[in-house]
């Protein structure tokens, strides 16, 4: 799909096809949550779940098709550092929210 041609910034390059695929997938994954919220077809928790599911999917679609991240050896360290970043963000955001909610509850 995309030849991970290396250049001095360690980023791969895409093709018209990879950008078009990513674009169409992103459009669909944007349309679904907006439609659900605007029409209120699902229950509250169902809508929240769909918002998060489509957002996470769209992040992966854009990382893959726009930033050409994949499991090839050329991208291995980019992928590993990104996964580590996600882990830190999870600790940071999740931990902050947890602490502040428990403070709120106790006060």
């Amino acid at each position, binding site marked *: 799909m995309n030849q991970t*041609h290396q*250049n*001095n*910034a360690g*980023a791969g*390059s*895409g*093709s*018209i096809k990879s*950008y078009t695929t*990513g*674009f169409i997938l*992103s*459009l669909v994954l*944007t349309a679904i*949550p*907006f439609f659900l*919220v*605007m029409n209120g077809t699902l229950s*509250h928790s169902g*809508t*929240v779940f769909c*918002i*998060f599911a*489509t*957002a996470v999917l*769209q*992040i992966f679609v*854009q*990382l893959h098709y*726009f*930033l050409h991240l994949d499991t090839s050896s050329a991208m291995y360290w980019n992928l590993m550092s990104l996964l580590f970043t996600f882990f*830190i*963000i999870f600790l*940071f*955001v999740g931990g*902050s*929210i947890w602490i*502040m*909610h428990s403070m709120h509850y106790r006060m």
Partner: protein
Amino acid sequence: MFSGLFATYVVMAHNYAGGPTGKELFNLTDALMETMLLLFSSVAFGLGMVGMHKGNKRMLLAGLAAALLLGLGFVTMEALEFSHMISQGAGPQRSGFLSAFFTLVGTHGLHVSFGILWMVVMMGQIATKGLTGPVQARLVRLGMFWHFLDIVWICLFSIVYLMGVL
């Protein structure tokens, strides 16, 4: 940095201090419009980069110009949204929720603005220096910056706008 701002926003999201809530303030059609502008801009930049790797200067410049104009459209819409909210008395000083909102969305908007400035500089470099190695490397970095801003916007419209009106 954005993860810190997101954490702050989520914690503050219900501290309305008797002021307006997201449900009253946010216009989802505008948010969808902004999302589309940024997505089209990201793709336009990507297609420009395909041109660069082919050595096609015209395709690269066309992609950059399209990305730049769409990015400008995004910043303009956001600025109008901000000024409309402030004129309604829903400025950042109104409540904890609005302080966090303006900080988070404003920081993203500022990044997009600097991305636009960077694009203008790169178009100048392409015109004067041509597609040299350093110019191409700078364009690749700008591309990563621009695509990441779109990824941050996915989190933004999901958590701030969609969850805000729910």
